[in-house]
Every structure is written in structure tokens, then in C-alpha cells.
């Protein structure tokens, strides 16, 4: 075990994936010499060469489009989109091409492309650098969408995503990049939780709190605070946003009878809406309260001096938890 930041854990995971499979490539803006603006690819070009760690032209559609071509030729490209707000020039390639090509080939093709996207706010950035666009991708059939929440899981998840034969949109919570935790870089992936499974982070009996990415830490803290007031909150890190691990979600909600979903993305048409609908359909007779959502407002992401109001904090999560006991 070794103590790593989230950024370094991803770096080690990428390194391991490149050592294990010579077909794995990294491509993106500033990923080579600079090592990425968040240093996730630091040192990889030096060790694996410019053919495997590619500093691309400044063109996101080109990054994803050429990654598709490389995948067609047998490679496993890992694309970095520098910030969440810059994925949109590549949106066409991701949604109209990457997501659909396997189907159109009658299952003959695989498109093992990973698209890493630093997501979420909380770093005091200017606009387009703090967004949470995951629902735009979970709404698109043919894509797997995952979000890592801590260094140990990120280390395994990035490797699992690269090994997966489907396209994977891989969200990384940028305000957690510099937080450290123990990571087992010696053990293999044999014991790792599969990429499409949620994990029960904290067991509880009174209410199920669902979260992912940057909100995992916030929700764990909220559960601890609620515990001091005698409320037992079960925290589930969804990990996989598409497909959702509904088995784990439903089992929990049927036990607790209450469910809150927290994400930074806007509540309106967000992932929480999908979860609320499914929980209502499948757990209706177990519910003591409606599924509540806590998240961003139905506005563009605000300027950074206001972002503390936009990002759900511990108080807003607890407020939602409290409200589920008001029915």
C-alpha cells in the first residue's frame, strides 16, 4: 500500500495499463511534455515515447475522431479532454459515431476508447472549467459512463475502463485530484469491484444516500454528521452512471425506505431524475418518502465566487436527508 493523490493514482493506473498492453495509447492536449494540466499523465511520454503518449493538435473533435480510427486499427486509445466544458467540440464524434459504431457493424467491431474528463467545480476556475455534463452521455445508448470518487478506486477503475471493450466516458472529480489515500498498486485487478457495480461505502438503515465523483466525500461527511444526530445513513458510491447498478440501489432502498440522490450537475433532467423514476417504479411499496434530489440549479454554472452556493455542500445534503423524514 502506498499513499497517493487521486491524480497520481490515475497516473499509476494508466502506467500499469500501458505496461500490460502495448496497444494502449494516450492522446490529448498537453498530455506529453507537460504531463496534463492536472499532471495525470506526468512522466508517461518520457517512459513510453511520443508514439504512445500523443500531444495532439488543439482540436477535441480530432482527438476523439482519430481515437475511433486508431481503435478500428486495433489500438486502445485513452483520450484526455482537458476540462469538462471543452468536450462539446467532440460531442458529435462521441454521440453520433463512437456510441453507435459497434451496433452498426452488427457487433463485429469493438470501440475500446476511454475518454477521461476532469469534471465538477470547486477549484475557483473561470467558466467552462467546472461543469458536470454526465447526463448528456448517460442519455446516449452505447456509452458506458463512470465516475471515480477516491484514489484507490480510481487506480482500479481506469484500468478496468481501458480493458473494457466498450467506449467509456471516465469522469474524474477535479477538486479531489490532490486528496491522498492508501492505494494498493501491488495487487492485481482480480479482487477489484467490476466497473459496472456500485459500492456501499457506509452501511446504514434509515436512508439511502446515492452519490458519485466529487460528492462521495461530501456525502460520507454528511452521513457522519447525521450519525451524530442518531440517523443511520447508508452511502452508496454509484461508480457506474451508465449502466446503473440498480440491484445494489434497490436492495438498499427497500431496506431503508428513503432515498436521496446528490450530484453537482443540475437537478433538472439530471441523473437523479433517472434514479428517482426507477426507484419509484421498483421500490414503490417500500418508500416512506419521495426520492429527493440535491444538486446544481437550473442555471449555467455560476462565476467562482458563487460556486459554494451551487455545489451541494454538507448542509444541503443533510437538509435533503432531513426532509425525507418529514413525510
Amino acid at each position: 500500500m502506498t499513499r497517493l493523490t487521486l491524480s497520481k493514482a490515475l497516473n499509476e493506473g494508466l502506467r500499469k495499463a500501458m505496461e500490460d498492453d502495448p496497444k494502449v495509447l494516450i492522446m490529448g492536449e498537453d498530455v506529453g511534455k507537460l504531463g496534463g494540466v492536472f499532471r495525470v499523465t506526468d512522466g508517461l511520454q518520457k517512459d513510453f515515447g511520443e508514439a504512445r503518449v500523443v500531444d495532439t493538435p488543439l482540436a477535441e473533435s480530432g482527438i476523439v475522431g482519430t481515437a475511433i480510427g486508431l481503435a478500428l486499427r486495433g489500438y486502445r486509445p485513452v483520450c484526455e479532454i482537458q476540462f469538462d466544458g471543452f468536450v462539446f467540440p467532440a460531442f458529435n464524434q462521441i454521440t453520433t459515431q463512437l456510441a453507435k459504431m459497434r451496433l452498426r457493424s452488427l457487433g463485429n467491431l469493438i470501440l475500446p476508447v476511454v475518454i477521461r474528463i476532469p469534471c465538477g467545480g470547486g477549484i475557483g476556475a473561470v467558466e467552462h472549467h467546472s461543469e458536470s455534463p454526465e447526463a448528456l452521455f448517460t442519455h446516449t445508448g452505447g456509452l458506458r459512463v463512470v465516475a471515480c470518487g477516491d484514489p484507490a478506486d480510481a487506480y482500479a477503475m481506469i484500468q478496468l475502463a481501458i480493458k473494457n471493450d466498450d467506449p467509456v466516458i471516465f469522469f474524474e472529480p477535479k477538486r479531489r485530484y490532490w486528496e491522498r489515500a492508501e492505494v494498493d498498486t501491488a495487487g492485481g485487478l482480480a479482487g477489484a469491484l467490476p466497473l459496472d457495480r456500485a459500492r456501499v461505502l457506509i452501511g446504514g438503515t434509515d436512508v439511502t444516500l446515492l452519490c458519485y465523483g466529487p460528492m462521495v466525500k461530501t456525502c460520507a461527511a454528511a452521513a457522519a454528521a447525521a450519525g451524530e444526530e442518531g440517523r443511520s445513513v447508508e452511502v452508496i458510491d454509484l461508480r457506474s452512471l451508465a449502466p446503473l447498478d440498480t440491484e445494489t440501489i434497490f436492495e438498499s432502498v427497500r431496506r431503508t425506505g428513503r432515498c436521496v440522490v446528490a450530484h453537482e450537475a443540475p437537478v433538472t433532467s439530471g441523473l437523479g431524475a433517472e434514479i428517482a423514476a426507477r426507484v419509484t417504479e421498483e421500490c414503490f411499496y417500500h418508500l416512506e418518502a419521495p426520492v429527493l434530489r440535491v444538486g446544481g440549479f437550473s442555471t449555467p454554472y455560476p462565476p467562482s465566487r458563487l460556486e459554494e452556493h451551487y455545489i451541494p455542500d454538507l448542509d444541503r445534503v443533510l437538509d435533503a436527508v432531513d426532509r425525507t423524514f418529514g413525510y
Partner: protein
Amino acid sequence: MAVNDAGRATSADSSRGGGQPESAEFIQLLTPEGERIEHPDYPLEISAEEIRGLYRDLVLVRRIDFEAIALQRQGELGLWASLLGQEAAQIGSGRALKPADMAFPTYREHGVAWCRGLDPTRLLELFRGVSNGGWDPAAHNFHLYTIVIGSQTLHATGYAMGIQRDGAVGGENGEAVIAYFGDGATSQGDVNEAFIWASVTNAPIVFFCQNNQWAISAPLERQSRVPLYLRAPGFGFPGVRVDGNDVLACLAVTRKAMQAARDGQGPTMIEAFTYRMGAHTTTDDPTRYRLAAELETWKLKDPIERVKAYLIRNELADESFFTELDAEAAELGARIRKACLEMPDPGPLAIFDNVYAEPNALLEAERDQYAAYLESFEEAVR
């Protein structure tokens, strides 16, 4: 600059990061040593007073930049994108504009903003994080800063198409648009689409590319194997490369291109060959990817020093001019600092302002709910 059959520049080093083209390969009217030279295609009638005015602009925008970097270091700004080294490209092109012309900037055009008459303190709002924009674009015919690389070139083209439809091309009151972007942006699909739209519509627009050699850590060779200005003919309009550190050349070349656009002769691409002397932004560390020697080479081509040398050598400015300008710069710096420190944070409910032009019931409900939520804390405190 000759181009061989393969479309590659025969002078290979000119398309590489930090490579300086031979003087014949760009338009230059004032050498780095401050020597005035003539160019047959770009005659420039300019008075001593006008040159002193340009020098004042250069010095003051560098001061704005200096102050903003300091404010960022002190935690007062979240970020700053420095224009250091690019002052001449921005002042030269900015002073070539007429009031009715429209400018579409990136996020680094602080010098152009200055020329358009925008109060520099307004630039700080975006970087301090109190606004996602910060000004009314129509007030100074200076559009909002655009952060998503290259997007604004299409907006500029569409605006120019509007000028055509308004019948405002040609004649004494002809209008035109200038679109700013960088070397990295030339790789974006949007920029190439803008070239195509402007070309086929013969839009009154000038594409002003500040080639500062670096897109964060990517040198120009990562974006292009040919000099950027040579891309324009392929799209169907002329391209010209200018010494981007020469304010006189930037002024003359932009004036001519803008007038051609106003007269209905269609687009021009200008490649201002310059250098990003500082980091990409205050979060960047250029020592990780470029050599200090390159920076030293470019320091010798400083856009301000050459104008100063010219003014002194030709006795067009005396000591008091420079002393008074220093004082004015210091005063401007102090004013910006004070404005930044006094800039209030917007109230939390400002998040909900200006999202829609028409009433939106969902958003109003969210605002009311959040106001009540905030109120509940105040009640708890009471």
C-alpha cells in the same frame, strides 16, 4: 516564403516554435532596434504624436497586465491570462479599428479591450470570478471574452454576414469585423468552418491570428506544417504575415485589411508573428516544456523597447514624456488594484439572474426555494 509541391514550407524552421522568419517573410515597419523601414504595400503616414500615443497604449496595457498578475498571485483573482509580449499585435490591430467596427476577442485581448475604450477593471470580473462575462458588448463594439477555443470566429463571421444584410458594406460608413484567435485555435473545426463561411459569403471580416508560438505546452509544429498565413489562400482569401511585435506594421496591415473588408473585398487573414512571453495563464508553468534561451531571444524583440528606441533616437519624445507616462501607468495600476479589492461579490441569488430573457417559472421557484433555505440559517442564528 516559398511553398513546394508537397505544401511544406521550404524554410522549415519558420514553422517551428520559436523560429523567427527572415525579415522578408513578414511585414515589418519598425525593426527591433527601433529603425523605421518602409514597405511598398503598406505605406504608413503617422505623426510623432500618434506614435507617442501608441507607445502610451503599449506601456499602459503592460501595466494592466502586470497589476493583474500581481493581483492573482495575491489571491485577488482566480486566474489571469497574460498578454505579455503581445502588446504590439493587440494595440496595432486595435487602433486600426473604427468605432463602428466590431471586435470578437479570445480571453487574452486586454490590449484590444483598451483600444475599444472598455474600462480595464471590467476585465477583472471574469478572472476574479464575480461574473462570467462582465460587460455589454454593444457598448464598445467589443464582444465578450470567449474561452472555448475558436468558437468566436464563427460568431464574428455571422456578425459580418449581418453587416452585409444591413447594407453596411462599402461607402464611407462601411463596417467590418475583426476576429481574434491564436495559433492553437487554427486546429479547431470551428475556425476552419469560419474561414469557409467567410470566404463563400465574401463577408467583411479580418481574421487576426496572434501566433504566439505556444498553445499551452504545444509548439506551433503541433498545429501546422505550413506558416499559418498560407492557409488562407486555400480557403479563397489572402493571408499576410506581419511582425506581431511591431506596432506600426500591425497597425498598417490591419488598417488595410479592415478597409478592404469595409469596401466589400471580403476577408483577410493576418498572422501576427509574436511570442507569449509569460505563462499560458497564471496556473501554467512553462519551464516544464520550453527553454529559457528561447525567451531570451524574444526579449530582444520586445514590442515596447523598439518604439522607445525610435522615439528617443529621433528626438520625438523627451524625458518628461517618459516620466509622466510612468506616473500615469503607476496611477492606472493603483486604480485597477483598488477597483479589484473593492469589487463586491454578487449576492447568492444573482446565480438566477439573466439566464432567460422571458419569465421562467421553474427558475423562479428554485430561486425562492434557495432564498428560503438561506433564510432558515439566518433564523437559526437569531
